[in-house]
Each structure stands twice: as structure tokens, then as C-alpha cells.
């Protein structure tokens, strides 16, 4: 355990997280190995991004470049590593496109879309003056030199992949409690891609998982939510985890109880404040919500699924060293959306993303956390709202999901 030297936990629990969990390169590499490359399913994209045979999208799992591609038959989705089996070249530079095969530019090794090696120039040498020069050894077997093929699982149009072919089935990985909320969004309807937002956040990747496992902050940091009545501490709500406590769903239903300032405790709350253009909050309930107006789902370690009223998106976490990650937002709608509903989703997207009224500040506080972690790695954070235990709740006044995630983290990282 490379991290023992730097990581000192307060006790056997996880209510105080060492700053060093966010600041150490060796620990970060160990996390990539144990959390992103082994034993876990990571998000790679949506099937709707690659609708036709040969369509591909380049993305990353952890810090390894991968390609999600639809096979020539038009049905199967493959995920292969973007690294030539010959000299390791990350051969695919386009971010999306359509191919019949993959070819590395360096020596023209070519691969089928599922990653099988099919062409090696000069494999049998070059004939010159009656003799054959060079070529690969006689025992060279193309079948042994394909691209790294990942295990793939598709559910409801969402594509996950794993470098670990022994990983448990996706449904078991997510677990029934959280899978229920996954299936609520991805219920088989065809998705329609609305577009992307990309931001680079100078903080440790785990902080983004923590942010969406933290119902303490929305009504306090996101003043906009409170000002315009979209978030209230007395909203009917629920926190649900899988049995391992690695994934979670924060489920809330917008209420209309009482005067907002009685429950928000936000001094800057302005009850009289009105939007100049109320279309930002032109919310129309949809049948598939089944009640909750917002469900934020964290799937550890790689993705967050967002339903905030009519705005739905996936938010992919791509780490880049211990102190930075890329956060890629894919907003989508559903095939049967009316033009008005599409417009509504696009308008409400102003609330989210790197410039969002209620999301821009998340990246900002993550950066400020990381700054102080780096300066004082021997210290620790305090996540004791709602106690020191881990468990599902029927309220939001707790940091139990963060404690749960670190309980699981310790199990894996200290094994």
C-alpha cells in the first residue's frame, strides 16, 4: 500500500478525510489501478452518440484513452484502447467520426472495429534480388496482437466499459437500489444528443463525486437555487446508496411548505426577487419522473447522472493527475420530445455546466479546497453532519453519502 506513508486516518471511520487523500501522486496512480482499471464499470458514452455502423467516439477511462465504436453490423458496441499494439501510438486523434477500420499512422498497422489486428505491412518481408529481407518472425500471430479490448455493457442506451474482464455484471455493480433510479431516466426510450460542455477543474476527481453526494451545500452555496425557490431544505427528500455505499441517488421533490426563509437560513435570501425572464424556470413535470423533481445519481468512480427538473445530462469524470480532472457534460433529451420540450431542456441547461447559475460555483469551491489540501496535506476535512455513521436517510441534512463513499474507498484501497 503505497499510500500508508502519507495517509493517516483519524479512526476506523470516514468522518474525517485526510487532505493527503487528494494530494499524492502515488496514491492517485493506485486509485487509477484499483478503481478505474479494475473491478469497476466506467462510463464511456451514450449509444445515441454512435448511431450508425462504424461511428466512433474517443474518450477516456481514468487516464487511458479509449474508443467507443459501433461495429460494421450496426448493432454491437465495442470499446478498445486507443493504443497501437505495435509501438503504443495513441493512433486515433479525431474525437468522433466514422471508420471501416482503425489504422495507426506510424507503420500502418490496421485493426477491425472490434480491435482485431488485420494488417501488418512487410509482415512477410520484402523480396529483393531473389531473397526475402526481414519481416516478422515466423511465430508472429496477429491474433495475439490486437488492441486492448474492454468488456462492454449497455443499459438503456448508456455504454459502460471495463478493462477488467472479471468485473461483476453491470446490474450487480450498480445494485438494485440505485439501478431503480438509473432505469428511471434510461428506460429504453431513444436518446437525442443536445451537445457537450467541457471544463477542466483544478481539483482531485473525488471532490466532484463528493459534491454530488453532499446535499448540505446546494441551499447554501447555490444562492440562485434558493433565491428563485428551486431548492429548499424542507423539500421531501431521500438519500439512497447501494450495498457497498459507493454509488448513491439524491432524490428530492420540490415542496411549497411555509415561508422559505424559515428553512433556508440563508441571510441573503430575497423573497421578493423575481426573474426578469421566467422562462429559465418554465418547468413542466414529465410522466417518467414519477414524483421526484430532481434525482442526482453518482456512479462511482466515473460519472454523475443528472435530472434537475427538465434538464438531463451525464457528467463524466476524467482524472488528469491527482490535482485536476476534466468534467464532460453530455446533455440529451428523448426522441419523443416536442420542440417545446427540447427548447425547455436547452433553456434550463443555463442552470448547469461550467457557466451554470448553480454549477459554476461547484468547480470554484473544488478548486479552493484543493488549494488548501496542497498547502497542508497533514490536515483533514470534517464530514460529520448527520453523525458519523453511514446509512440511507429520508432527509438532506447529512453528509452520510460522503462517509459511505470513503468507507468503500478504504475497503478497496486498504485491501
Amino acid at each position, binding site marked *: 500500500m503505497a499510500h500508508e506513508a502519507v495517509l493517516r486516518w483519524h479512526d476506523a471511520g470516514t468522518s474525517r478525510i485526510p487532505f493527503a487523500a487528494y494530494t499524492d501522486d502515488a496514491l492517485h496512480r493506485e486509485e487509477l489501478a484499483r478503481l478505474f482499471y479494475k473491478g469497476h464499470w466506467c462510463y464511456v458514452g451514450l449509444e445515441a452518440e454512435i448511431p450508425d455502423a462504424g461511428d466512433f467516439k474517443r474518450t477516456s477511462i481514468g487516464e487511458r484513452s479509449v474508443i467507443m465504436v459501433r461495429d460494421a453490423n450496426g448493432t454491437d458496441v465495442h470499446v478498445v484502447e486507443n493504443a497501437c499494439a505495435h509501438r503504443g501510438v495513441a493512433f486515433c486523434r479525431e474525437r468522433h467520426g466514422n471508420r471501416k477500420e482503425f489504422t495507426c499512422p506510424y507503420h500502418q498497422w490496421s485493426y477491425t472495429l472490434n480491435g482485431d489486428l488485420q494488417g501488418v505491412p512487410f509482415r512477410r518481408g520484402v523480396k529483393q534480388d531473389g531473397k526475402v529481407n526481414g519481416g516478422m518472425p515466423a511465430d508472429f500471430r496477429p491474433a495475439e496482437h490486437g488492441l486492448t479490448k474492454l468488456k462492454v455493457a449497455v443499459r438503456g442506451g448508456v455504454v459502460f466499459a471495463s478493462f477488467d474482464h472479471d468485473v461483476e455484471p453491470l446490474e450487480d455493480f450498480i445494485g438494485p437500489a440505485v439501478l431503480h433510479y438509473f432505469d428511471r431516466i434510461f428506460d429504453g426510450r431513444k436518446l437525442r444528443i443536445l*451537445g*457537450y460542455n467541457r471544463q477542466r477543474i483544478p481539483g482531485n476527481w473525488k471532490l466532484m463525486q463528493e459534491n454530488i453526494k453532499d446535499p448540505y451545500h446546494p441551499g447554501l452555496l*447555490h*444562492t*440562485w437555487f434558493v433565491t428563485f425557490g428551486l431548492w429548499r431544505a424542507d423539500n421531501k427528500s431521500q438519500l439512497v446508496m447501494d450495498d457497498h455505499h459507493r454509488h448513491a441517488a439524491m432524490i428530492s421533490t420540490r415542496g411549497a411548505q411555509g415561508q422559505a426563509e424559515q428553512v433556508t437560513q440563508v441571510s441573503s435570501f430575497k423573497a421578493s426577487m423575481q*426573474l426578469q425572464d421566467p*422562462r429559465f424556470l418554465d418547468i413542466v413535470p414529465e410522466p417518467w419522473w414519477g414524483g421526484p423533481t430532481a434525482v442526482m445519481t453518482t456512479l462511482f468512480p466515473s460519472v454523475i447522472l443528472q435530472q434537475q427538473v427538465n434538464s438531463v445530462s451525464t457528467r463524466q469524470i476524467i482524472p488528469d493527475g491527482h490535482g485536476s480532472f476534466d468534467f464532460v457534460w453530455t446533455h440529451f433529451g428523448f426522441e419523443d420530445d416536442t420542440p417545446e420540450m427540447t427548447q425547455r431542456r*436547452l433553456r434550463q441547461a443555463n442552470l448547469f455546466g461550467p457557466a451554470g447559475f448553480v454549477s459554476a460555483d461547484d468547480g470554484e469551491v473544488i478548486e479552493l479546497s484543493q488549494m488548501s489540501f496542497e498547502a497542508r496535506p497533514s490536515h483533514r476535512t470534517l464530514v460529520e453532519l448527520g453523525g458519523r455513521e453511514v446509512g440511507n436517510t429520508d432527509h438532506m441534512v447529512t453528509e452520510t453519502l460522503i462517509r459511505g463513499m470513503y468507507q468503500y474507498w478504504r475497503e478497496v484501497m486498504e485491501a
Partner: protein
Amino acid sequence: MSFDDYMALTRLHADYARAVDSGNWDLWPGFFTDDCVYRIQPRENHERGFPLATLSFESKGMLMDRVYGIKETLFHDPYYQRHVVGAPLVHKDDGERIECEANYAVFRTKFNELTSVYNVGRYIDTVVRTPEGLKFASRLVVYDSEMIPNSLIYPL
């Protein structure tokens, strides 16, 4: 387009840049018509025909709501921004509406930090003549920058 009209258009671009670099955000909506469109969109979405924008506003009211957000609700590390805007390239002028575009680079400076290139792209504009002078009926900000360095708070 007459020399005077081109001068007025150039002046609009320069005034806009000064306004959004001044820190006085209330100046910003005044450059637009009441039913304006203002969108900041990644080049990727623009070229692939995806409608999502990083910010997408459809009225001067929405711009005013953004100003309120910047001033009152959005927590962010403060920064200076500085626009360098190229000469406008006029595609069309029918006497009422001018269709034009201009390259821009925006630099960001945080307290105690070096200045960095923050966002680079082009404005694709529709400018209309009004009794109060030239106004943007539409300003589409298409940015090349692949990554937003953490957040985007102020108008580009």
C-alpha cells in the same frame, strides 16, 4: 457599407469590449435589443449542429438575470478579463441589419496570478440600427477553447 457605418460598427465592438472588461456588468445588456439572442457555444456543438450552448439567452431580460447572478448569487473566485477583438468582417448590410463576425481573445487575470489565455473564438453577429444607435439583435460567441478553465462567470 459607408465609411461612417463601418466606423460605427467598429465603435460598437470597441465599446462592448470596454464594457465587459470594466467590471460594471450592468452596462452589458444595454448593447442588445429587447428580444436579442446571446449564446456562448463550444465550436464542437456549433459545427456538429448540436443546439446546446454553455449559456443561451433569448431576451434582454435573461441578460439582466445573468447580471443579477454574477453580482448576487454566483460564488466565484474574482478575476479581471480583457478582450482583444479583431476588425469586424461584414458579410451583409441591407440598410437595416448588418451581418458580421469578428475574432476575439479573452485573457483572464486572477489576483496574485499570471495572466492566461482564457477563451478564444469569434463573434457571429446580427447588428441592427435603432434610434439609440447600433445594437446586437444576435451575438453568437463560438469558442475554439476546448476546455473552460474551471468556470465561466462573466459575459464574453
